[in-house]
């Protein structure tokens, strides 16, 4: 038994439990409370991050294929469910990514929202007629009807509940990557659903209810199918031990049973990933979710699906994988092309990034579909790279939306590099990283995936995979096309005042000292139906704020590091990829 994985779960869980106890800062004012809870969350997730760093340091990097820090305790004998945790080269980077992104989300939330500016806390919210829940989305809160009143703040309000939700989310995400028992994996896989639902449904945008409902129903349907597949594996093999099942490489299951199980497990995971025909929940969820929700959704939750492919579907069911891999590859390539084309047509930045995620996940799936160590490495690398890059993109777009009050590309009016040089630079950096510029992290995942498709495993139709590779290459071009056209419309050109009085929504005077106070109140926000005006407008917008810088710099550094020194990650994943595939 090793205490580290348990502590990684226990710390955020204990943090959440403490938040749930109805004591604490009741004596202080609401402002203090609003600041206190994100800082509390920052501390808890900071401890978690430190623990994960200890985990990475203590990890035996000479033998990453071996399962380390194993904890194996019986939990529910009646179900055969064991509390079985462990870390190897596949899960370690994902655990680190999760801990880092959660920490950065809390850092992003720690901005010290002032009481006076911004929203008026209680009445503003309570006066907002809310829709009667997902069952009646139409009458309550159509976007048109929302025009007259202020919408809810993107990630403000109920800070205690938000901190609680994010911490529970962290438990679920880390647990998913640590679990080595099929049912335990499933339990953690499900733990994230309700918190993420509430993140979208409470702190989301205008059409948050519908998006949240779509998200949870879709992903739950996927989860249930996944559960059936897992139980089917169990019924066939009689064990839930993921390491034993991975070592067995499908012995004990007939070919037909493996195909059936792969179909069920793969379909369940494909919803989460998401794979092309099952992706429709993703654009809505990403668009409506608040910034931290989008970051965690894209940065970590999608990885749970691909992690399932790496950990369960492909190693445990090689017979099914060989048969169905061409289909997986085909859907992946369609996803790449479809995602890129959809991105070209988007006007909303958040939505565009959401669709770009579909394309990038397509590359990850294509890497898995090759069933070779090279493809596997590419998929795992792309996984991490996408987590870092897309998280950064969502952070940046969230900040843009707070400043401009909109993320519509035409409304932004161009010239961001002139108006907000630093923000524009970060956006450019993230977009260029996302389109796969060599030297940045996004490049290696795509290249290795395409390389995997160039030389697929024996038994797979090579000519088909060459077509996949060609189409994937076309996808990279399209990806570059939409990102560059977006950049040309947003960051370049002459700034046009499309928004009358740009809104002060992002940065309050409290943590920025006098600047905010001096410049606020010069104009009244009147930004139309999409506006998030709160009565404080100003001519010039503030460039990157400290709390944003804190959240973004680690991501940019890691993107650069992985782009320049991919071996750091490939050394960890490579041996595991070989052992999971049963390759020598």
């Amino acid at each position, binding site marked *: 038994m090793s205490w580290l994985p348990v502590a990684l779960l226990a710390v955020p869980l204990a943090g959440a439990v403490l938040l749930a106890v109805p004591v604490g800062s009741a004596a202080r004012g609401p402002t203090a409370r609003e600041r206190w809870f994100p800082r509390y969350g920052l501390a808890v997730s900071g401890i978690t991050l430190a623990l994960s760093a200890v985990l990475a340091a203590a990890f035996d990097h000479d033998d990453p294929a071996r399962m380390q820090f194993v904890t194996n305790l019986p939990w529910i004998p009646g*179900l055969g469910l064991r509390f079985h945790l462990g870390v190897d080269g596949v899960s370690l980077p994902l655990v680190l990514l999760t801990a880092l992104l959660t920490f950065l989300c809390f850092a992003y939330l720690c901005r010290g929202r002032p009481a006076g500016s911004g929203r008026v806390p*209680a009445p503003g919210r*309570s006066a907002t007629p809310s829709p009667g829940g997902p069952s009646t989305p139409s009458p309550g809160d159509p976007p048109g009807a929302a025009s007259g009143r202020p919408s809810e703040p993107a990630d403000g309000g109920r800070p205690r509940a938000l901190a609680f939700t994010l911490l529970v989310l962290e438990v679920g995400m880390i647990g998913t990557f640590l679990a080595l028992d099929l049912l335990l994996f499933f*339990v953690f896989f499900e733990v994230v659903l309700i*918190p993420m639902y509430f993140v979208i449904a409470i702190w989301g945008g205008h059409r948050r209810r519908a998006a949240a409902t779509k998200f949870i129903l879709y992903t739950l349907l996927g989860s249930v199918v996944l559960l059936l597949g897992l139980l089917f594996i169990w019924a066939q093999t009689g064990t839930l031990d993921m390491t034993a099942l991975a070592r067995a490489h499908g012995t004990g299951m007939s070919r037909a049973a493996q195909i059936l199980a792969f179909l069920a497990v793969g379909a369940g995971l494909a919803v989460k990933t998401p794979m092309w025909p099952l992706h429709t929940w993703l654009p809505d969820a990403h668009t409506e979710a608040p910034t931290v929700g989008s970051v965690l959704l894209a940065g970590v939750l999608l990885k749970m699906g691909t992690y399932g492919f790496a950990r369960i579907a492909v190693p445990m069911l090689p017979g099914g994988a060989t048969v169905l891999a061409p289909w997986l590859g085909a859907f992946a390539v369609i996803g790449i092309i479809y995602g890129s084309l959809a991105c070209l047509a988007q006007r909303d930045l958040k939505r565009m990034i959401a669709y770009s995620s579909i394309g990038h996940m397509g590359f990850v799936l294509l890497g898995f579909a090759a069933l070779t160590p090279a493809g596997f490495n590419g998929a795992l690398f792309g996984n991490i790279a996408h987590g870092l890059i897309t998280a950064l993109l969502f952070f940046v777009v969230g900040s843009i939306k707070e400043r401009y009050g909109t993320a519509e590309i035409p409304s932004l009016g161009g010239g961001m590099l002139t108006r907000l040089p630093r923000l524009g630079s970060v956006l450019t950096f993230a977009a260029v990283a996302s389109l796969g510029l060599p030297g940045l992290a996004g490049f290696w995942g795509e290249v290795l995936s395409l390389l995997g498709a160039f030389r697929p495993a024996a038994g797979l139709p090579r000519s088909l995979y060459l077509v996949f590779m060609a189409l994937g290459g076309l996808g990279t071009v399209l990806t570059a096309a939409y990102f560059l056209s977006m950049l040309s419309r947003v960051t370049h050109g002459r700034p046009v005042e499309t928004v009358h009085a740009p809104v002060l929504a992002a940065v309050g005077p409290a943590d920025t000292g006098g600047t905010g106070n001096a410049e606020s109140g010069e104009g009244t926000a009147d930004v139309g139906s999409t506006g998030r005006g709160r009565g404080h407008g100003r001519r010039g917008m503030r460039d990157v704020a400290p709390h944003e810088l804190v959240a973004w710099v680690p991501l940019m550094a890691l993107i650069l590091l992985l782009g320049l020194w991919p071996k750091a990650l490939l050394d960890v994943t490579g041996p595991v990829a070989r052992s999971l595939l049963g390759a020598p």
Partner: protein
Amino acid sequence: MIQPIDYYAVAPPLILALTAGLVLLLDVFLPRAPYARPLLGIVTLAGVTGALAVVISQAVRAAGPLRTFCVPPGLPGSAAPGPGAPFPVTAPEAGAAPPCSFVVDGFTLVFAGLALAAGIIVVLLSMTELSFGDIPAGEWHFLLLCTLTGAVALPASRDLVMLVVALELASLPVFALTALRRYDGRGSEAAVKLFLVSVVSTAVMLFGISLLYGLTGTVYLERLARVPHAVPGAAAGAVSGSGVGTAGPAAVTAGGVDGAYASSLQIGHDLPPVLAVAAVLVLAGFAFKVAAVPFHAWAGDVYEGAPIPVAALLSVVSKAAGFAGLILVLVGGLRNLAPVWAPLVAVVAALTMTAGNLLALRRRRAVRLLAWSSVAQSGYILAPLAVRDERAMNASVAYLAFYAAMNLGAFAVVMLAARRGESGELDGYRGFAARSRIAGPALAFFLICLAGLPPGLAGLFAKIVVFRELVGGGLGWLAAVMAVNTVIGLYYYVAWVVRIFTPAPVPAATTTPAPAEAPAMAPVPVPAPAPGVAGTAPEAVPVAPGAVSAAAGGRTGQVAAGVAIALAAVVAVLFSVAPQTVFVLLPETLIATG
């Protein structure tokens, strides 16, 4: 001759029956003082708790099953089947114990404990309900105890007559309970509906049972279980020839034992169709009781018309009794007819969960939603019965136990909300979490449990248990249907949960609520905890001095409902963290022979 009775074995129903009489007497002789109503409730509670204590003591005794009301050895019924039966059962082996009507085994104890634990919650809810004062307390508690007596006696029954009597004892008082509120048109309507449906179902079931008895000449489940073995070939020939009455000479041979190992398909072909008809009729009778499709239509009106504790009673205690009887008859008595009833049960389960969920989807009232959702849950409980494996029954029982805790909790919160003057509309639950800082998250927890998602791990594990049996038993299609239904169910449960956490619409005049003025109504400063509060902080529920008791103020009635919520929450959290508490209770061999 004097029959020896094992009073220890019959103690739980006996205690309940005696308490029922005591309550009735007390009601007559107690002065009409304000303490009379709570006192009656407390006496009832003491009786139920006492019976539960006996059940627990029987459970920890860890010896073989207790048998009583056995056929004395001297009687003809003990050895030989009744005369003239067309398909008489085999004579039991020499030296076999005589059949008994009342057996306390693991199955009995699980169901009795479940009914009594649920009974405690229902009594607590009743104390809240009765504090309104428009319901006669003595009669109420008497009837409640009667129905609990039936529910406790039923799982111990091992012959068809006793089974029917216990089932009626569990059902009949509920009609009166439903209609007990005076001058309530909806209650009366609900009672009439329930009465008619129940009587029809009893009639159907009795017809089936009479057929079974007429065909086999025995009412003992243990002997019924041996029926088809006796007539591997003769029965088919006899029935194809002439039908019911004129059977050929049924060869009662030792070869019947070998017939037991014939393939189930073979048995299916060899079954006399009349037996199949009887089995289907019995199944239909129980389907009424558990509100399975196509006999589910009464649920919505009856649940809504009845007082909320009665709805809780119907949804848990009556349902548990119905399932106990169903399992006893199908698995205990007619297990060799499984090829007949198992596919039927599978189809009924699929239809029940689908219909229940679809009907719950558009409901606007809380109790009605719970009514249809409990129909859907019946489908989930039925599903493992379709797997022809005795171990699969354990999944049904386990699900029932999980479901009881979750559903009672939800009803308890609805009761408390109704007592506090919340409207029964789902939209009335907006901002409930802000108004009731404990009850709101508790309700959310129960609903998420029912939906079967973490943090409601109890519901998740319950569903996993059922799924496991279905997948392992080769009923993949039923598992797929149930998977889709789980998603549908989640939709309405989560829609309700979201309402609980949505800030209530506040009139525009109160846009600046001073903290002292209406702190509970201002949703934003109140950091309403997300769901899972009850799941992660169970100890906070009972000990917190918060909404449950504090906001009750002088209204004493709410305390009982608060205690009920706390109990249900503790059990649900226990089931979430340690579901093995249910699994270890389940006996290895489910039903001991009578």
